[in-house]
């Protein structure tokens, strides 16, 4: 039981400080102003070739965006800009 309590305590403390940390994080001005095309070029190639905008329809890009947001741990701002760029270039 003791080990379980210690585990629970450590998890609670980690979540508390993690939440505080997340709340205090923000992108720099330069990062925040990056356009979708740049973010598309920078983030997709970390794992695979950058996709062609014509690979999917606009509504399909919405689904792909959600999928990659989870898979690649992208932020909401990054995904929104990338999907917007892909839809515009489609």
């Amino acid at each position, binding site marked *: 039981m003791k080990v379980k309590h210690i*585990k629970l305590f450590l*998890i609670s403390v*980690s979540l508390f400080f*993690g939440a505080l*940390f*997340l709340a205090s*994080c*923000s*992108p*720099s001005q*330069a*990062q925040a102003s990056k356009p979708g095309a740049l973010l598309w070029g*920078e*983030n997709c*190639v*970390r*794992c*695979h*070739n*950058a*996709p*062609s905008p014509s*690979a*999917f*329809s606009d*509504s*399909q890009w*919405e*689904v*792909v965006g*959600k*999928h990659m*947001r*989870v*898979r*690649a*741990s*992208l*932020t*909401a*701002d*990054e995904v929104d800009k990338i999907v917007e760029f892909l839809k515009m270039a489609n």
Partner: protein
Amino acid sequence: MRKVLLVLLFLTAMLSAQEKPGESRFLLRGYAHSGIEVRGDETTFVGGSFNPIFLWRQSDKLLFEAELEVEYENGETVIGLEYANMSYIINDYATLRLGKFLLPFGTFASKLHPAWINRLSSKPLGFGHDGVGPARDLGVELRGGVPLGDAKMTYSVYMINGPALNDGTNPNVEPEEAGMLLYDRGEDNNNNKAIGGRVSFLPLSNSSMEIGFSGLYGKVGNVESKYEDLAALLYAVDFSYVSRVSFLSGVVDIKAQLNGVNVDDASYFNVEDSSNYSFANQSSAYYVQMSYRPVNMGSDFINSLEFVGRYSELSFPDGALWSSDQTQYAFGINYWLDWRTVVKLSYQFADTGVHEAEGEAGEASNDAVFLHWAFGF
């Protein structure tokens, strides 16, 4: 098999039928690969596998994803569930995932293993099935990406059923491999959930470099066995650097990962001489891979080429019946037909030094040539 395919077709049709005109919530994606391999005197066509991925965007906050692996092995079609989970987007920087998911234990198993993403036809030593470290499991996960000024970090914390110890007492689970961890077992073998996580940093403003640290801890012994309190600590360190290099007129991609597994010491039954024996139960595997694609050479043909090399090592514990030290070199040339379709020609050679518990050492070469095609869809 026919029933499974009919169910899949039915589900696909049902999901598609629920969509309003012009609005697509369902998406069928995936990848497939096949090829021919030459090993020693044997030449054979292999693969014939495909992995459909089902995506369903329930709302702006809810996503369901599932992947099947359909393989043709030994004359039979084998279907496996890679993952099936629901993601709930809590806020800009946090997503909750429930179900069976690819574990962020390093990056190879969670991001880089699909045939159209993996630059070589084979996987690094210790990163395939029965490797060092888990690839997927059932549980709950909190994950996300967070901006840190010009840099960025990603995080994941999760609780899963966790690995199980092969304690050698089940004759159906290779008793000669007592002490080895078994992954992706479905149900938990004890009441203890394993806890793990990964933190990665992308220190450069263009996100070209990523360094990740992963850990997983939990009890692994079967409940009500003498191994019940046995625990294991697993860790991984991964590195990635992808960047255009102007003087090379192309893109350089470097990937590396180290996996380690430490299981508490215990005594196991030796099936070869009916004695009990123990050993320091530590395993590790790592790979380093570099690829170069000359995308700015001016010629479409040359721009579509890619050159790749990889070194990998695998080490299972000295003194165990399954002890082994292996090394592998792999080199390849790829030709990209488009951004998600590739033909891969590669050559690899390996030293599989199999050490018996008595101390005898054997060396076996394992040279192979692969010609594979792979595509994502």
